[in-house]
């Protein structure tokens, strides 16, 4: 599903080139559940952003579902992204002015899905995550765990093949974190959604089927 070859990422800081990622080679099959670990500044989030097409690498090749991500046009990449990738953030990043229902609905709006279909999809999702009663509340009225549930629901609503999570439990207490991890595991196993998560916690990383350790922008060989 994902092939990364010789991925480099750097910033120019004056005359110095500061490397964030160095020579990343990675191949991920569909249905994988991968945890990326590493200390702060090791390049975990940058790697996730490159995989999620939010950022470009300075050098290297990236193939996603057989397409060369860095070569195809902006529009095609955007389509590819919309159809296949869902994102979950540490800080949830819900739109404060929209209700739970509307937040979950938003990705569908950008995929031009008709109203009736949209309604049933959102209703399904609310049902599955047990948040039907909260659908008219605004994010500020929810607890952190609930907000992250909404964030995950939003990421999954468009039925992506790949779910990217950047420290999804970083702002949650351990019980809430555990619930989210259980949910990820279930999604991965039952629906076959490929998951890549960045995490600090060994315990959460263990939910993944595979762990990748990053240090100073390189994948540590085990």
């Amino acid at each position, binding site marked *: 599903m994902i092939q990364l070859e010789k991925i480099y990422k750097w910033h120019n800081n004056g005359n110095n080139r500061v490397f964030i990622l160095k020579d990343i080679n990675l191949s991920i099959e569909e249905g994988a559940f991968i945890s990326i670990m590493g200390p702060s500044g090791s390049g975990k*989030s940058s790697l996730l*952003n490159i995989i999620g097409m*939010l*950022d470009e690498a300075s050098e290297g090749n990236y193939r996603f579902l057989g397409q060369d991500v860095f070569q195809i046009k902006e*529009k095609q990449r*955007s389509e590819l*992204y*919309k159809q296949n990738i869902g*994102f979950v*953030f540490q*800080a949830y*990043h*819900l*739109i*404060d*002015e*929209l209700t739970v229902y*509307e937040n979950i*609905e*938003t*990705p569908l*709006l*950008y*995929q031009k899905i008709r109203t009736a279909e949209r309604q049933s999809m959102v209703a399904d999702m609310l049902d599955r995550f047990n948040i039907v009663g909260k659908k008219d509340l605004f994010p500020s009225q929810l607890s952190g765990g609930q907000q992250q549930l909404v964030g995950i629901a*939003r990421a999954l609503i*468009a039925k992506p093949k790949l779910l990217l999570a950047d420290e999804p439990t970083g702002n949650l207490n351990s019980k809430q974190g555990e619930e989210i991890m259980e949910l990820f595991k279930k999604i991965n196993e039952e629906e076959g959604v490929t998951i890549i998560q960045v995490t600090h916690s060994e315990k959460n990383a263990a939910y993944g089927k595979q762990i990748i350790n990053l240090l100073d922008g390189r994948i540590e060989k085990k």
Partner: protein
Amino acid sequence: MFRNYLKIAVRNLLKNKGFSFINILGLSVGMASAILILLWINHEMSYDQFHEKKDRIYEAWNKDTFSGKLQCWNTTPKIFARTVERDFPEVEMATRVNWPSNYLFSIGEKRLTVAGNIVDSNFLNVFSFPLLKGDPNTVLKDMYSIVLTETTAKNFFGDADPMGKQVRIDDKDNFTVTGILKDLPNNTRFKFNYLLPWAYLRKQGEDDANWGNNSTRNYVLLKPNATLASIAPKLKTLKRKYDNSELTNEMFLYPIKRWRLYSSFTNGVEDGGLIDFVKMFAVIAAFILLIACINFMNLSTARSEKRAKEVGIRKVVGANKGSLVGQFLGESILISLIAGLAALLIVQLALPAFGTLTDKKLFIDYGNFYFWLIFIGFILFTGVIAGSYPAFYLSAFQPVKVLKGTFLKSDKVVTPRKVLVVLQFTFAIILIICTAIVKEQIQHARNREMGYDKNNLIFHFLTGDLEKNYALVKNELLGSGAATSVTKTSAPITQGWSDTWGIEWKGKAPDDKTDFDRFSADEDLGTTVGLQFVKGRDFNLKQYITDSSAMILNESSVKAMGLKEPIGEIVKDNGREWHVVGVIKDFILQSPYHPTKPMIIEGAKGWMNIIHIKLNNKNTTADNIKKAEAIFKKYNPEYPFEYKFVDEDYAAKFKSEQRTGTLAGLFAGLTIFISCLGLFGLAAYMAESRIKEIGVRKVLGASVTGIATLLSKDFIGLVVISFILASPVAWWFMHNWLQNYPYRISIQWWVFAFAAGLSILIAVVTVSYHAIKAANANPVKSLRTE
């Protein structure tokens, strides 16, 4: 999707009530100003454009050279109309409109002086003034027919059918009402309450076939297929053909669409006219709207961080740039719609006052489809202009940066906004300087030595029996103590009604075409109006019986005639010889902005229309007026006592400039107001984005004043830049404007100093609120957030 956007927009508006209020207020005030100006412009452009035959209607004009200058004027000989109808196949018909007449109307008990025009009977075939009753082809055929406007008819006859009723005019002649006109629209040069047939003018012996007497207005209707080009050369030589004393005269036709806005000529060439004013106000309207839009941009981008997160999220969940631009443009159009509706409300409330200010009856035609079309267009236009910068600015955010929180490079954000603020203040300062100079120029002209004493002086037309009973009236006025001096004249002392280049004197060069103002008075003119004699004496019929043919000159006249010893010289005018008995200092007869012209004042044998009365300053004015009224009623019972104060009439000369001054001041005020709203918002943003810096400075021991100064300093710099940009532009505008006034001020440096001081003061007051608030904030709080 649209609903989602709408919800976001509405919730954002409600959540940030302060910002929304400033935003909508600024935009709606700007839009309201622009709408008012556009209404006025639309009104000016629509003058006389409703006539069905407007493409074929022309006014006859003269062009001739006087003292080396080519002059154009639109009074032409009475014989012109019938001559062109006969001589030129291109002409379908020509119609004359004489000067407005003020006749006394009597209908039963009712008596009133009413203003109207004497016109050729084909007038209504040329101009489209619809008749409610009567046939336009025949209403003015009979010498004793009269056409009334609806309102005039209603005044006299109430609800009864006026057709066929009798109107007695000047207690002499009875006229039959043959037609009722719909009331004249606002946007026409004509102003009459009734029309009388030309035959009546002829009957009174006022018609003439003299090609040298340019005394009326002639309008020409060309045939549908005729061209101006084919008739123009023939008109050039028309006068010379019929009058061999006309050597250089040319006549020409002036099209209806240029009458209102362009008819100002210098050296025989159109040189602007009202159109300059219209253009200037169009520019002001555009700028005020632009400034309101700039405000909107400034305030929207100032809030960009708050919206940045939303942009980032939307991009992550699949939004492309286009849909985000659409969303933000939609939001600004929504705000512009709300502002537009608020603007309509403001316009509706301001229209009466604005109408008074511009001396126009302006209104919004809500039933008009085009009005709504233009209004919607206006809203979309404003929304897109105001929203474009924020929309593209916001939608260009990179989600990774925004969501990570590394966004916020205030330098980049602030620079374009500083440019916008400079633009706003430049415009505001230009308007401040212009207002100050216009006001100064008006004051300058007001303070000008006028050459006579306008206080306690009234004038009255010699209506009805006043001419006949003049001696009795005068005696009683003086006897009763109401007046100290009374004089009969040709025209009010504030108005020039007659001028001539036809007078002769000893030593006049044959080609001298110097134009003299012509005035006449019976006696004691100097005492009544308070003239200053340089040589000789006033008219005095009691002492000098020959003073009825005496003449008084002003100093400019003496100079223009080149007379060494003017007293006793003979001046020939109207086939009469006048001997000069006195010389006065020049006084302002017409425009206080122009140099005084040479002037001749003829004695009692001259043409008399007005009575001037110097009221006795020992009594109260009310007392004097009451006595005078009783005397007028006694000797002229049929006519109402309708006097005018000379000082009020004189003040009216400043009306147009005062209006310019007031409008400039008004728009300057509005511009400053809108700009300040923007500055206020920007200051809020600056204070917020520098909150950490302020915290650190405070911890290091900076004082509140020090920090407030630090924050205000930047803005003062912006205002100073604006001032530097605005000054030359304002100077150039005002320098050109002042060229219209031969009697004018020179532009003083203090006007600029005043504008600079005022704008800096306003900016400081606006900014200081946020500056002081930020400086007073507890640093512990602001530093903890980091």
